[in-house]
């Protein structure tokens, strides 16, 4: 059964990436410019990475569904046009990582 | 009756001598001489086959040696006729 979920995750990630690509092309028609952090992408990134690392924290919803959502969000953030979405992803990983370290008890 | 091992030794000696002669013998730059020299080695091998009582193989060897020689000579003379430097 595990493989089915892996397939779903990958597909969702790809769909997210494509969506992210389309979104960013719609938003930025111009050639590449260094821009500020995009809030929407940041939110997706944080949500995605947070869920990926910390889906075990919650006990109400099955982790598969959470992971599916997480991969979609990550894809949305990573799959931007080249050059976009890097900082957002980094921030997302950072926050999710910190939360994971704090909650998982690695430190203590 | 007679010493069988002696025959094997003679056969091997002929084979080795013949192959040496074929490879480094006098005048082997000429392919004709080289081809004739292979005959010595083949007689050595014939002797070994004879001693090992593989007479059918011996017969076949004698028959094929001639034909192989024929083929080689054909190749040599043809190439010389063409004037090929191989």
């Amino acid at each position, binding site marked *: 059964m595990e493989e089915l979920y892996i397939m779903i995750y990958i597909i969702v990630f790809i769909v997210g990436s494509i969506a992210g690509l389309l979104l960013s092309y719609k938003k930025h028609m111009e050639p590449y410019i260094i821009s500020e952090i995009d809030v929407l992408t940041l939110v997706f990134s944080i949500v995605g990475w947070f869920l990926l690392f910390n889906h075990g924290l919650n006990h109400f919803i099955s982790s598969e569904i959470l992971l599916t959502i997480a991969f979609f969000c990550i894809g949305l953030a990573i799959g931007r046009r080249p050059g976009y979405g890097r900082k957002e992803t980094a921030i997302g990983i950072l926050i999710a990582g910190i939360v994971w370290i704090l909650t998982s008890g690695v430190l203590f | 009756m007679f010493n*069988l091992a002696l025959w094997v030794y003679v056969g091997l000696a002929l084979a080795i001598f013949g192959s040496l002669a074929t490879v480094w013998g006098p005048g082997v730059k000429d392919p004709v001489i080289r081809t004739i020299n292979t005959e010595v080695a083949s007689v050595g091998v014939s002797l070994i086959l004879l001693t090992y009582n593989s007479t059918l193989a011996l017969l076949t060897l004698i028959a094929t040696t001639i034909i192989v020689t024929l083929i*080689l000579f054909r190749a040599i003379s043809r190439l010389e006729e063409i004037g090929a430097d191989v």
Partner: protein
Amino acid sequence: MVASIVPQFVPAFYSSMYTTALYGGLIVAFIGLIGIAMEKRDIQVLILTDIVGLAMLIVVAAVGTDLSEALILPGLVVELAEIMAISEILISREMRKKDVHTSFAPMPLNIDMEIMTTAPNFIALLLIGYGVFLSGFTGGAVAGGGIVIYVLSRKVRGLPIVVLDGVGAISGISWCLWIIGFLFFFILPQYWLLSLFLAALGLLLKVASKIGLIGILMREEYGRK
């Protein structure tokens, strides 16, 4: 008596001579191979591969069983066939290389040897008859030798191409004969005698006709004016 005809183990002579014979074979092979490694001209290498083939015979024969002889027999004929094919490639390569200078027709030969007019018919007949009696690889080789000498000595220039095709067809059919014989051995074991003859004659015809082909190739090489 019958039980002791075939020994249980390999006789002491073979096992005591094995090391010697194997080493001898390896030495011959080594000499031949080093000769090839040092040789630069192509035709010379072709001649030297003959020595390597002889070394192979020694190594195989050294085992000293009926099986090893059965392995030698066809190996010999195969070696012959390969030399044939490769020398042909060499000739055709050189001809194509020197396309401008070459003639297809080999130089006609002016030979007047007494032996070439009287002996061959008899020898060839003898060899072919004996080869037919022997059958199999050996018989094929012997009878083929007879055909070769016959064709060589006779003034048969200008054999039509049909003959070559015919020879090919004979050998193809005999090959099929042999295959059928082989299948009979396992499908209908009660007809083993029939299959034995199919196999033996098929092989004989095949080898003999193929070697006879060499004679046809040679006839223009040594065909007289």
